[in-house]
């Protein structure tokens, strides 16, 4: 992998489980995560369970099939585990499957995979490989529902010139624990839109990494999250610009409400020496709606060449903007309605960027439901 860089941000990967000691919480990549609530996914909990049922609904031309351990597809994205949970999934996953769109295919509707958790006691590990053939165009949606203790690895391979919109929606019940490792490889002139939407779950942690398999690739990562009382939602992103003239654009927006709501966003970008002429921008915005919440936001940028188009990041955490509220109220809008409008306005441009019409309505509705839980209740 050539990761012998002097940086603590991206540890060297290994398939050997013994190279990944049980985390203590002091490690840089674990320091925000409440390990006690991971239900042993990082330690010794048995992962052989079948606590998650899968259901597929989508257009023809998409092959969804189980994979045997050791299949050549596993690892085809260049994925190498860099932490203990994903290394355990690599070795111990009870369910392995592939979603494949052949080359030169254009799907007319999203392929939707619904994973429903049945029990939190049955810790489960899954390993999926999503492959989009060269010059194909597809939208893949993975929905998570119900209660589960799940560790998964999702590999995403986007072939040369292909376009993929990959959406993962965590609509878990309140007691679910989900540790997800996602690794994408984007081919020459291909583009990937990676969308992560998280509303439910007790603890949801996403480690999303992306690399390029040739020049001209483009990655857009969008994230939308809403953390309630006691919820921990963590996103760790790492875009590794390994090829010239590639682009990455990241926008994550979140809202927090209720005592102990905690969100973490880490956005790491590395621009390697050979990655000339690249463009990158990362942005994270957090809206704190009530007292007692904590939003951590850390963007890191490492650049090894000066021959770039542009690189930057921005991060901000704030409460309701009094001026915006005042403006709306001076126009005769009630406080409740004003707050609702501000939150919807905060999320709406992001929802529009996702540009999956099937999802737009349900996302707006979910934002509304989340608001009703707290902010709007207080005022009514």
């Amino acid at each position, binding site marked *: 992998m050539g990761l012998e860089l*002097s*940086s*603590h941000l991206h540890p060297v990967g290994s398939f050997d489980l013994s190279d990944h000691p049980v985390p203590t919480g002091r490690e840089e990549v674990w320091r925000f995560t409440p390990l006690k609530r991971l239900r042993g996914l990082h330690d010794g909990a048995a992962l052989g369970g079948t606590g998650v049922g899968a259901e597929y609904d989508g257009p023809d031309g998409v092959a969804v099939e189980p994979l045997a351990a050791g299949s050549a597809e596993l690892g085809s994205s260049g994925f190498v585990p860099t932490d203990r949970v994903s290394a355990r999934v690599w070795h111990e996953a009870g369910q392995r499957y592939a979603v494949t769109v052949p080359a030169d295919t254009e799907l007319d509707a999203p392929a939707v995979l619904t994973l429903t958790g049945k029990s939190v006691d049955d810790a489960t590990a899954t390993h999926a490989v999503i492959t989009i053939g060269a010059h194909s165009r597809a939208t893949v949606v993975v929905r998570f529902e119900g209660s589960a203790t799940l560790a998964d690895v999702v590999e995403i391979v986007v072939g040369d010139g292909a376009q993929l919109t990959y959406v993962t929606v965590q609509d878990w019940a309140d007691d679910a624990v989900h540790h997800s490792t996602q690794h994408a490889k984007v081919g020459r002139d291909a583009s990937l839109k990676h969308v992560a939407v998280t509303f439910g779950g007790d603890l949801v942690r996403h480690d999303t990494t992306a690399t390029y398999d040739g020049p001209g690739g483009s990655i857009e990562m969008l994230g939308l999250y809403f953390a309630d009382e006691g919820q921990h939602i963590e996103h760790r992103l790492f875009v590794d610009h390994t090829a010239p003239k590639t682009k990455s654009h990241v926008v994550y927006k979140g809202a927090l409400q209720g005592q102990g709501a905690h969100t973490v966003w880490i956005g790491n970008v590395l621009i390697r*020496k050979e990655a*000339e002429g690249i463009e990158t921008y990362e942005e994270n915005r957090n809206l*704190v709606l*009530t*007292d*007692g*919440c*904590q*939003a*951590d*936001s*850390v*963007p*890191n*940028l*490492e*650049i*090894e*060449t*000066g*021959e*770039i188009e*542009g*690189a*930057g*990041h*921005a*991060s*901000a*955490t*704030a*409460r309701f903007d009094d001026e915006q509220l005042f403006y709306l109220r001076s126009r005769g809008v009630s406080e409740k309605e004003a707050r609702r409008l501000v939150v919807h306005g905060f999320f709406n441009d992001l929802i529009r960027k996702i540009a999956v019409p099937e999802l737009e309505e349900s996302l707006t509705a979910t934002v509304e439901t989340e608001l009703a839980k707290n902010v709007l209740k207080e005022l009514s």
Partner: protein
Amino acid sequence: MTSIEERNPELQGLGRYQFGWADSDEAGALATRGLNETVVRDISSKKSEPQWMLDLRLKGLKLFHRKPMPTWGSDLSAIDFDNIKYFVRSSEKQATSWEELPEDIKNTYDKLGIPEAEKQRLVAGVAAQYESEVVYHSIREDLEEQGVIFVDTDTGLREHEELFKEYFGTVIPVGDNKFAALNTSVWSGGSFIYVPKGVHVDIPLQAYFRINTENMGQFERTLIIVDEDAYVHYVEGCTAPIYSSDSLHSAVVEIIVKKGGRCRYTTIQNWSNNVYNLVTKRATCDAGATMEWVDGNIGSKVTMKYPAIYLMGEHAKGETLSIAFAGEGQHQDAGAKMVHAAPHTSSSILSKSVARGGGRTSYRGLIQVNEGAHGSKSNVLCDALLVDQISRSDTYPYVDIREDDVSMGHEASVSKVSDDQLFYLMSRGMEQDEAMAMIVRGFVEPIAKELPMEYALELNRLIELQMEGAVG
């Protein structure tokens, strides 16, 4: 001769590294290398220090050996602690007027431009540090009348022991980090400033520091106390001659700003490219007080410096302006740290860095908002400019917020000098390196304009020299 030199003939004499000369090294040959208890006891007894200071030094030594080397930031493995002279006493006694200075020291300072500054009364007092101890020191009488103390730190300990003991080591404890411990055990020189209640010092206080002995570590210790509603601006500049083996500079600067006071600390560091510059700087701000660090890092091989401000009282304000240049073989790991420990405190960090010729600049910052510091605001902006393909720039902005009612913003951008900008300037008849220098000057302008005038000029000259040969 380049076009810049043709128009500014005075630059020619300055050469590639304009302060890279060395006087004959009399004091250095006598000093011993390496660090042990004898060296520390020696330093203390030569200075006839009180027992408590010796005890503190010995404690520092013990902690220095116990503390681990930092594993993050720059590569420090090349520092050989056994090959450093920890104390060098200048052969001359402290002088009270310019004429009393020995000839070679006078020459050194002539090149640095001190007498001009003194003559023009641009500076309030010039404490010039020469080989660990201040040999030349003057302060304007009206300041003394106001009760302002501005002396070297050794004199401060001798003449104002009570005040000194009350504050020394309170902002940066002995065992804060490995290099602060090292400094505590072998410190020598630096400035001691006390500004009494309500006194407004109109003109910047300045001090020059120089390392002049090969392998000599410079461990100055600066302590500034700004009493209630007082104001002071302290300016420090560093230059050192070029030597073949690595030098270590590890200073500690402690600043206490009391209620309603304001302190600005400006430093431009231009150590030669073999110096490890590992500095601990920290200030505390009481209610309504303001602290400002203006921090320029141009020289040195490795700099690790993160001026910190602890906002301890309500409505305290902290501001850090930082600028870094990294050329060939240099790593400027600089940044800032802000700790919000009281409600309604605000902080702002503006960092600009330029990397060229394979140099590396890093911004490393920490914003910490403690529980109870509600209504706090923090804003961080860092911009980096890369001049070629082989240079490197990193941004590591840590944020640790334990309070919900805060507003926090961070923004960073990294860009290269665009061909469009160069083309525009060159089509107006400018040479390429001149155009490049102008773009870089424009980039750092927001910070340069905060510097005292003579420093802003020096900075501009340094940029031109740095940018020479950067293109083509």
